[in-house]
């Protein structure tokens, strides 16, 4: 393929800045100057480079804490890299975990409006999308309930339906598909496949090898913040299983 990559990472470093030893209070910081630095740098991702092309779907594999979710956050623009460059050419819809970004005290419909506004949609665009979102989520009249009364499955229905309705160019999924019931899972997979068929790029974090090999054409393996391997699903999957 000679086309431009839709996602391109060049030597990306991402660090977390955490307070040293966790429990210094303001008092210690002020009265023992120099002893503590305010923020300590920790590498979460180191020297990551890869390219993803339009229409590809990539499974992200790795142990817990290997930096998969951080990588998704970086792709969605929530975290900016400390070093290196991330090029993303298209509308990104991040689905970063269950119920994240949903306001517990507000109703389903209020949450739809808020999420759409926060993702930059205008009121008119949102109004158009609302019936579609409600229909896809199959939440029916529970859409008027406060989200705190939702079950985990209902929350994932809502957040998935919101994210997917904007016709994204790139869909980032962080293990959220696993929560809904069988029927909804299949519906989501169908929707993802349909989006894939019209050229949507998917980056998918999962611990289930069968899901990754079903859904993805390529896979990436993260280990301790390094990109261990990037290539076809089969060989990356084998390498992943060797980690344990």
């Amino acid at each position, binding site marked *: 393929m000679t086309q431009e990559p839709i996602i391109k990472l060049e030597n990306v470093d991402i660090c977390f800045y955490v307070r040293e030893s966790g429990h210094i*209070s303001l008092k210690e910081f002020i009265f023992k100057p120099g002893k503590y630095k305010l923020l300590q740098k920790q590498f979460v991702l180191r020297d990551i480079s890869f390219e993803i092309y339009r229409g590809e779907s990539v499974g992200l594999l790795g142990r817990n804490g290997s930096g998969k979710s951080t990588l998704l*956050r970086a792709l969605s623009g*929530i975290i900016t890299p400390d070093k290196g460059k991330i090029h993303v050419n298209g509308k990104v819809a*991040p689905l970063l975990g269950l119920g*994240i970004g949903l306001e517990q*005290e507000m109703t389903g419909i209020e949450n739809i409006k808020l999420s759409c*506004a926060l*993702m930059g949609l205008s009121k008119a665009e949102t109004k158009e999308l609302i019936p579609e979102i409600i229909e896809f989520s199959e939440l029916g009249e529970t859409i008027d309930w406060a989200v705190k009364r939702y079950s985990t499955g209902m929350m994932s229905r809502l957040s998935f339906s919101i994210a997917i309705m904007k016709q994204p160019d790139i869909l980032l999924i962080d293990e959220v598909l696993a929560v809904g019931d069988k029927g909804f899972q299949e519906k989501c997979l169908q929707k993802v496949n349909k989006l894939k068929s019209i050229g949507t790029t998917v980056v998918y974090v999962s611990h289930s090898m069968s899901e990754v090999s079903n859904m993805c054409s390529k896979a990436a393996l993260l280990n301790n913040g390094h990109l261990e391997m990037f290539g076809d699903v089969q060989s990356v999957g084998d390498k992943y299983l060797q980690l344990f």
Partner: protein
Amino acid sequence: MQKFLKGVLSTLSDKGFRNAILSLAVKTIKLRYKNSLLGVFWSMLNPLIFLVIMLLIFREIASIPNYALYALSGLVFWNFLSASVLQVLTSFIDNAAILKSINLHPISFPLSATLAAIFNLLLSLIPFSILMFFLGYRIDISIIAILPVLFVSSVFILGLGMFLGTTNVYFRDVQLLWISIMPAFFYFTPIAYTIDIIPVESQKFIKLNPFYYFMECYHDIFYYSRFPDVKNFIICTIMALIVFGLGLYFFNKYRKGFISNI
């Protein structure tokens, strides 16, 4: 810094971003009173309770005519200043879920919290202005001065809130400190009393208190029905600009650690 300011300006001119900030502000107000019976009336009840106490205790000490109007006009805006700084300073933590999951410039949180505070004030000003009339407020052209004074106050609140809020992400002591220090500042600021009853040599300490200058502006408009003292207003503006610059600088320098520390 210049690049950063340019970035902020171009984000602010984006329609989608403005819509996002507005929605966040509306959400903040809705959530605040969601599960309460009296709802928005709570923000009116608090000054009224204080007003009664002050009428009972401080009226004699203050010894100025029409003390009720003086006290009420001070209380309403004192509540606005102290409560809204607190809301701006906790805005990053309050919106942790959004901050971690949606690609939205983090300056949206203090901005929307400031907006929500202004909405809230305007809402409570409707019944309070009626009450002020009954307490003897004389309508005067100087009322238009409320616009620049409110604007400068908001810039001050936003700046101070961003500075304290950024620190608060790393040291939660800050919000506790603010909550415990503000009641003290209430007595350190001429709200229940006028500065004239303080011995002249002690007045200079009161004048070190930044809130003094803001409260004087509000008193001028609502109690004396006159334009705020120009010197006071200029001091307010200078303080607001300094605090805003400091807040923006601090926020920009330390926001890279927000995600890993909230």
